[in-house]
């Protein structure tokens, strides 16, 4: 129609997922001097198979200003999800743009966890970052000596945990990996950290 600017649909949709946080991004629709809003909707495998006309508004981005949307709270099963975005300017809405490939949370990248290994007197203490409810951590620790025996513990993050009561003069090392049962995957181990307790080691 004459002179009416048709609002273009958002382009270049893509999703980045790390440690079970899923961020949908797209190229902003530029309308000089105007504020464009966006709406995001999703559809799981169930909706696309059984009720394909059903799309569900995203929890946090219907509408939103920025050209991105955290869809973590919308992706609540380990199945493929379709995601789509459209632009809105006043009464005008663009066509929908749909993510080219459905997203499954089992493709998230799991990074080696950050951890802090400390000693509290003779106590070996570890604290792992809190990555949210999906995460557990497999912690491996040992006393640095020939033929060392590795000990294993599974724990959650966010709180300091006592691992071992150490002997003076001995060095103890710790490493950890992240486990996510919802997708049946784990991260690589992080870099081992060692601590040593001063003083004479007790005679054997």
């Amino acid at each position, binding site marked *: 129609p004459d002179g009416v600017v048709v609002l273009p649909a958002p382009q270049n949709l893509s999703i980045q997922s790390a440690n079970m946080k899923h961020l949908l991004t797209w190229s902003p629709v530029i309308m000089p001097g105007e504020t464009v809003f966006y709406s995001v909707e999703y559809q*799981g*495998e*169930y*909706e696309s*198979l*059984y*009720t394909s006309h*059903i799309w*569900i*508004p995203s*929890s946090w981005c219907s509408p939103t200003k920025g050209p991105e949307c955290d869809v973590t709270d*919308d992706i*609540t*099963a*380990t*199945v493929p999800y379709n995601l789509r975005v459209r632009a809105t300017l006043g009464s005008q809405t663009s066509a929908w743009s749909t993510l080219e490939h459905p997203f499954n949370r*089992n493709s998230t990248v799991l990074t080696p966890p950050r951890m802090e290994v400390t000693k509290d007197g003779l106590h070996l203490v570890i604290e792992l970052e809190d990555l949210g*409810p*999906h995460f557990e951590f497999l912690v491996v620790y040992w006393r640095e000596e020939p033929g060392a025996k590795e000990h294993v513990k599974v724990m959650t993050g966010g709180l300091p945990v006592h691992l071992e009561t150490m002997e003076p003069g001995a060095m103890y090392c710790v490493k950890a990996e992240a486990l996510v*049962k*919802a*997708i*049946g995957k784990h991260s690589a181990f992080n870099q081992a950290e060692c601590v040593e307790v001063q003083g004479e080691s007790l005679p054997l």
Partner: protein
Amino acid sequence: EFRFGPCRVENVILLELWEAFRAVKDSVQTQDNITSVRLLKPEVLHDVSDAESCYLVHSLLKFYLNTVFKNYHNKRVEFKILKSISTLANNFIVITSKLRPCVKNDMLSIYKSAHRRFLLFKRAFKQLDTEAALTKAFGEVDILLTWMEKFYHY
């Protein structure tokens, strides 16, 4: 993971299902006016053997996917119910896709026993008006999850 007898299912977090249902439990259950009827009655779920459980959960979840959730969308539902159904239904798809109920002859009697239980549920559902049956079945997801939890290993 779930262990329904010989059937194992991983990658489903039962807590996510409970959270999805609890978000809508009150609003769904208050719409259920027929308090004298229960679809998932004791005869359906009590004393289910491990061997039966794989058959029964497969039938029940398929019914919820094909009938309850599918038709619930035809009702004017609020946003949070849409989200709750989506979480439950998509996880039910994960579960049913991993269940492989055994079809050998020596399992026939166990299959029949599980099927009788399922038919009790289905008949009760069919005896109600469709709208009422959908509301009641959705409202009884907590009964279903409570039973499924017996087979869940943390």
